[in-house]
């Protein structure tokens, strides 16, 4: 992990309030593993850029890498001031990023059948993970859920990937039934687990969804990993701001989402920590 001043290659609106940004960062592209993130300054570099509001960097998952071009992709939704500032960044401007940070997903033994469960923006890191898993020859079931069709962010990309890779099997859920399964993506997970034997699961999305997913996985006895979010200060493990509670022999302890996570074993997370 390091600090990089990266030129922005592209910053394009790709959906409802969602942007895809590509940074030129060969070191990051070479090192980043799925589930890791970058800690991104939302103020572009240059004279007059030493702005203290908003003050903190924003954590964004690595969404993809192109090692040959030295490019790293981020996929983010504008939800507040920081991401709104990012959305205004133009090609050629410089962004200061730290990373790759955190512990990513652990890869399964060869020839596994896995399921990826994405809620909302959870697709950002899981798409990267899917690519990686396919590269190693695993069978990948990808469940993507959202409130409605418009919020199924990578729908096109996922369907395209299905065309290309027979071992990639996406399915979709929307709360309002506007596309795919009508209901939560965890419902889709139950359907899948009831039908086929899955070796391992990976989930990323809103906390409530992760919690439910962890419950389903426990019931079916499928080991899984979840990627958590928490408000971050440093992003590098120093300030202890990003605590999440994990179960331990004889109690619990607080772990740092930035350095001990963001990926944790689904069964270790103490969902009652707030």
């Amino acid at each position, binding site marked *: *992990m*390091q*600090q990089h001043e990266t030129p922005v290659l592209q910053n394009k609106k790709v959906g409802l309030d969602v942007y895809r940004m590509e940074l030129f960062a060969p070191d990051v592209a070479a090192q980043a593993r799925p589930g890791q993130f970058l800690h991104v*300054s939302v103020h572009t570099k240059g004279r007059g850029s*030493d702005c*203290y*509001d*908003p*003050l*903190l*960097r924003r954590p964004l998952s690595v969404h993809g890498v192109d090692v040959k071009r030295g490019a790293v992709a981020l996929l983010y939704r504008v939800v507040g001031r920081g991401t709104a500032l990012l959305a205004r960044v133009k090609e050629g401007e410089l962004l200061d990023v*730290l990373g790759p940070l955190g512990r990513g997903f652990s890869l399964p033994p060869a020839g596994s059948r896995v399921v990826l469960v994405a809620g909302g923006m959870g697709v950002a890191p899981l798409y990267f993970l899917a690519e990686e898993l396919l590269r190693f020859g695993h069978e990948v079931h990808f469940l993507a859920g959202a409130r409605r069709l418009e919020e199924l962010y990578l729908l096109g990309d996922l369907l395209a990937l299905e065309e290309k890779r027979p071992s990639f099997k996406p399915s979709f859920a929307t709360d309002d039934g506007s596309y795919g399964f009508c209901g939560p993506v965890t419902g889709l997970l139950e359907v899948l687990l009831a039908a086929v034997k899955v070796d391992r699961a990976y989930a990323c999305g809103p906390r409530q969804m992760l919690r439910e997913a962890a419950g389903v996985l426990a019931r079916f006895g499928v080991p899984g990993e979840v990627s958590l979010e*928490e*408000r*971050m*200060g*440093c*992003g*590098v*493990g*120093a*300030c*202890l*701001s*990003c*605590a*999440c*509670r994990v179960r331990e022999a004889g109690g*619990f*302890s*607080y772990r740092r989402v930035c*350095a001990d996570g963001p990926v944790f074993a689904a069964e270790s997370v103490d969902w009652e*920590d*707030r």
Partner: protein
Amino acid sequence: MAKPSLSVEIAGIKMKNPVAAASGTFGFGLEYAPFVDLNRLGAVFVKGITRYPQPGNPPPRLVETPAGVLNAIGLQNPGVEKFVQEILPALRPYDLPVIVNIAGTTVDDYAFVAASLDGLPGVAGLEINISCPNVRHGGMAFGVDPASAALVVGAVREVTGLPLIVKLTPNVTDIVAVAGAVMEAGADALSMINTLLGMSIDVRRRRPALANITGGLSGPAIRPVAVRAVWEVYRALKVPIVGMGGIATAQDALEFIMAGATAVAVGTANLFNPRATVEVIEGLERFLVEEGIGDIRELIGVAHGERGAR
């Protein structure tokens, strides 16, 4: 012109330059080793250490505010024993004064931690965080009352020969009174300021944004309050001071030095800029060269005017 001298000494601790990392914002230093050469720092104040391990507060522990952050970490730390066994040795390879920030909720706690650290190789000094709630006295912080503050410092002074830097809270009517009391009680220097008491409300949830309800405000937002505190205490007492509160650039550090600080610490700025400490050091050096000043110590307190006329 010769390279200007940046070295200072505070409470008997020799620093290569006046720039330290502030407690709680720099972990145990090691977390920042990938970003800065730790050997370049003037000193590091490590995360607050208590007698027993502390789990810390439930999340959320941090919320961003305009030009600042509110934190309520809750002194999460492994306890003094584990600190001595595991962390201190890992810091030995660095040429870096390690100042251990100690905390407690009873006077005994403070004394216990101080005694456990006394005489250990690799401990350059102690910083006593007196902003902790005094459990014996209704939970008001030790540091808001001159007498309680002096009690803590006196007890620590008795059990250790280490240099003692006492960290003052700004949440008081009269910081000079507390400063005077702790110097009397045996402090070698003061560090100021700790965080301002604040809170933030999540209006959608209609609840405090931090699980702990209130938290400590830090970052550039509080710098004017911190500079004023250093100014007042230096003016009244002319004691050695480590200034902190919102320092992110060399300019900021110079405000504190000119107000009377011998050394400074960079806190929250590490969070948004891991290289902040080193950038401040480089900026100070540049400033001295530009202004033709041979020794940074010439600038200590100059804004008060007595020595400032040149």
